[in-house]
């Protein structure tokens, strides 16, 4: 969770590093999800079974990465809340 910015005090070095790491982790997860989406769309158009296998191997590599597994666990609660919020607000 991002530090709520209040008051005039500067963040401590530990706070800075923690928030930068959090940003990087979230960025990597969202980037991996985007790559998976891209690969999933490209997979049906790959030339023949060999191309399809290459894409499937890339997807398995992504899913098995520590970054993916840790990040997905970190982001899961926030995403559940966001989805609930959208359903309650009925946003178009």
């Amino acid at each position, binding site marked *: 969770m991002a530090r709520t910015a209040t008051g*005039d005090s500067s963040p401590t070095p530990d706070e800075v590093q923690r928030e930068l790491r959090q940003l990087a982790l979230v960025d990597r997860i969202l980037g991996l999800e985007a790559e998976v989406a891209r690969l999933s769309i490209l997979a049906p158009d790959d030339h023949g079974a060999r191309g399809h296998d290459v894409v499937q191997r890339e997807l398995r590599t992504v899913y098995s990465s520590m970054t993916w597994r840790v990040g997905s666990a970190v982001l899961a609660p926030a995403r559940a809340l966001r989805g609930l919020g959208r359903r309650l607000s009925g946003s178009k």
Partner: protein
Amino acid sequence: MSAAAPQPPVLSIVVPLAAGADAGPLLRSLRQQDGWELIAVGPEGGAPDEQVTRVPIDRDAPLAASLEAGRLAAHGEFVTFLQPTDSLPENAMADIRELLASDEQLDLFYTDERIGDGPAVLKPVWSPERLRSQFYLGSMTAYRRSLLAQIGGILADRPGAELYDLALRASIPARSIGHLASIVVVRQREHALDDTALESTRVALEEHLAATGGGRVDSVSASGAHATHRDVAGQPLVSVIIPTRGDSAEVRGSRRVLVVEAVRSVIERTSYTNFEFVIVIDDVAPPAVREELERIAGDRIRFVGWDAPFSFSGKMNLGVVHSRGEFLLFLNDDTEVISAEWMTALVALGQRPGAGVAGALLYFEDETIQHAGHAYYRADVTHIGLNSPRGAAGPGNAFLVEREVDGATAACSLMPRAVFFEAGGFSTLLPGNFNDVDLCMKVAALGYRAYVTPRAELYHYESKTRNPRVARYEIETAWGRWEHLFWDSKYWPDDPHIVYPA
């Protein structure tokens, strides 16, 4: 065995007719298609036609009365209101049926169109903020018949703006609004708005703004591009994050320290008052730069040192974690404020429910447009309006209205703090290029919207100080994530490389 009840038509087309007129062109275009019914509203007379339902009305009846009489006589699932000189291409009804089959919650849809022999008028996907400045939905706007009943149909006291008012009111309770990217109607001409229509438009917009979170109508225009804006709620703190090396460059024939003049222009020309600066400054920057910035910005400014190799993403992220604002305003050091209300306009859009990014209209030193939003076109990423002259209206007056976009440059853009952290900030995998594109794509993937406002105008003296070379790994990273979404822009269906005339 009883015969199956006939299916109601998919589309009821209501056409107001003057005395002695007929719907010849429209009817001829419909004959070879199915799923429609034509409801002609006008004075008694005219040749009978088994495919036309005639609704008689007094010859002096106002247009609203004709449209409403037609609505009440309709049996179709959807209702639209056209002119007798309009025509529907042979694919129209088939395309409409396909759209309706794709979304059973669709309550309102609009389509692309053509005017006479002119070029196609292509529309963006559903853009509620754009709608409150112009009736971009156009001729073929169709409403679920039950929705029209729910909102009370056509209002009698909006002469000249009956259909724009209808669209505004219907857009609020509509469950789903769809755009059919197909030319489904050909109009013969456009009409400029007269004084009566303009007054009706003003009233309709004022009511719509009040019903959708507040705002003001600054002016209405015969061109159909109206100036409206959202109000800012409260005075949230805005953190202006500026990464800089303290470089100097020549602008308009004189040498300037870019970041000093950028900050000076913000302080001297900005009407919004609650902001701070977070300057992420290279340790090698001349000390005189910090001294001058402190002198002109006082206690509004805080400095964060940077001693690593260049990384726009790294510097911006570092600036954000040192900031305090509810809103983050990313600003290049080679910019200069033009419009006093720029920050107010960005904050107002940033406060919209679901807002992710709000961007500005940027000009080069030579008064041509540098940026009016991001656009994607056949795997290319570019700026809308690039090199068009300042003051160009753009297709359908797009440059003149606040509107949804696919993304906005971080040379000047505002983002809610919470969205920034939810999106993981600027990716440090993209230190130089495409980091703002990537951030906007992440924000969009999370379900947030991006906007651009012509009320925020700045100069951007781009690339006078940094080598704009693009590294292969940057393309591989950005396209590796988003290539599948770089083929077209939801909010800019035209070729973004077009240079528009003044």
